[in-house]
């Protein structure tokens, strides 16, 4: 009897704790959504509405109709850069990850560690020389300028995630393929890649997410309106219309949508891809 009570007590504590931290993690999303669905008058009352009242889409409509706001162009710029970067990183990264996990060659370990080291170098130390190089080679304010920088920055992460994934695929799979007459490259394309879809997807999402959200490099090299990405546009927005919190929150929600949906849909793959390298089985 006493043991049962203890168990129930523990159960209640567990649920309370889960409730607490879920509130902490979820509340900001709820709040920004709630703000974005209310008009200006409702936002500046002393008593805050926890349910949008009166409910309105007035903050969202100008984002799509008002050309001066530049939001849609910035969104398209962001999507283009993130998508192209992700494709390049997954293709090149999987070739290298295959070599690192399957082939013996001189310097394999050194190259791999050097790749990881680049990831630990502070972005700020690249910012100044990149700016100087970009102004000399006319890469400022171009989308490929951003892609070049992002590929160099994210390719090691993509390679690392794919490396963790390829390592878990049994070598027997390829051996059987090679007996059947597949070449190395053939077995990579026909046997290894199809079963590593989760790894490819999680590498792709991570690269996509980081490129979508990157700010400091973009704001430094993309100063013209036409080249702005969404994170830049949103900060300018905060400065320009300092009191228009409704429009600001609507933009924030718009910026959030694509990474959040991707992560929710593909989280199983993502967690698998991320933790394979960090947890020793």
């Amino acid at each position, binding site marked *: 009897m006493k043991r049962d009570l203890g168990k129930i007590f523990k*159960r209640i504590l*567990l*649920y309370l704790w*889960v409730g607490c*931290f*879920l509130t902490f*993690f979820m509340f*900001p999303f709820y*709040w*920004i959504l709630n703000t974005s669905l209310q008009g200006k008058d409702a936002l*500046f*009352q002393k008593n*805050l509405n926890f349910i949008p009242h009166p409910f309105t889409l007035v903050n969202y409509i100008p984002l799509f109709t008002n050309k001066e706001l530049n939001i849609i162009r910035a969104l398209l710029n962001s999507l283009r850069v993130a998508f192209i970067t992700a494709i390049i990183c997954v293709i090149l990264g999987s070739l*290298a990850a295959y070599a*690192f996990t399957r*082939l*013996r*060659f*001189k310097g394999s370990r050194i*190259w791999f*560690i050097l790749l990881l*080291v680049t990831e*630990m170098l*502070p972005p*700020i*130390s*690249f*910012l*100044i*020389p990149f*700016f*100087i*190089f970009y*102004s*000399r080679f006319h890469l400022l304010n171009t989308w490929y300028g951003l892609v070049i920088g992002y590929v*160099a920055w994210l*390719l*090691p992460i993509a*390679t690392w995630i794919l490396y963790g994934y390829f390592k878990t695929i049994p070598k027997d799979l390829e051996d059987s393929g090679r007996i059947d007459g597949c070449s*190395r490259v*053939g077995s990579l394309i026909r046997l290894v890649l199809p079963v590593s879809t989760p790894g490819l997807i999680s590498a792709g999402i991570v690269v996509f*997410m980081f490129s979508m*959200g990157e*700010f*400091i490099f973009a704001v430094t090299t993309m100063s013209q309106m036409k080249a702005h990405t969404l*994170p830049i546009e949103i900060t300018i927005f905060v400065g320009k219309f300092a009191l228009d*919190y409704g429009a*600001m*929150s609507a933009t*924030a929600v718009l910026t*959030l949508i694509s990474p*959040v949906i*991707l992560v929710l849909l593909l989280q199983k793959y*993502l*967690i698998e891809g*991320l*933790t394979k390298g*960090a*947890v*020793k089985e």
Partner: protein
Amino acid sequence: MISNKSRIREFLNLEAHESHLAGFLIAPVIIAVFGILIMPLLFSLFVSFTDTRSVLPNSYHFVGLAEYIKAIKNEDFRFSLVITVIFVVVTNFCKLVFGTLVALALKERFKGRSIARSLIIIPWATPLIVTGIIWKWMFNNHVGVINFLLTKLGIVNHYIDILSNRYSALPAIILTDMWQGTPFFIILILAGLQTIPDDLYEAAGIDGATSIQKFFNVTLPLVRFPMFVAIILGSIFSINQFDLAFIMTRGGPINYTRLLTLYDWTQAFKNLNIAYASAVSYLILLLSFAIAVIYIIFVQKSEA
């Protein structure tokens, strides 16, 4: 033509050519990463030994380590260094403790566990700039929800400007950073917890261990590795934190949240102290590098 084709096939097939093939496969990554990064990095090292104040100067005047010495002697630099160290240590410590407590709960079986597990990842996927904007809005001193709740609960009796107070601005940024960064800690620690077999706990239970003893004697030693990975990657990430402080406080009030990255960026792109800023960026690089070296030594050792 035919002989060429068969030569290619031979080349791709022969074990003796494994290293050629490997070179062929890793070349694109090596060229893309080092080709793009190494020149700018060396160039910036060169610039840091000059005294240039222009992006495209006609000539460079070599001054050795003068800019580095200037930085180390500079009060503003030192203050930013202290702020950065406080930020990195506190935020990572809090993420570790909070992340462990959440991971322990998410390991238990309860209704809605899988939903809870997916929800906690979303903050991590949120672009940092958006995180900064949302929390800045919540910290607002006129109509912010945090002030509203604090007054409603009777914790404070009037609205306070949290982000403009020198003692509360940095903690506010740390809280925001925890919201964004703890999920990464949770994912890694939870993955570690799941590899611990249940028998170990049963055995400890038979020996009469309490829950707390089980945590320190069974759980902790087995999740040390993922915890370590989380702290190192988290530290490197927070040394480079820029976006949150930029959007929430711009380094204020009176530089109490001006992290080194923010200081460096202002020196480079607002004051155009290009050489000085390059030197400061190399000092930040050294700091990251020290942590990276610890990490690599640890990983090498644990794999051996």
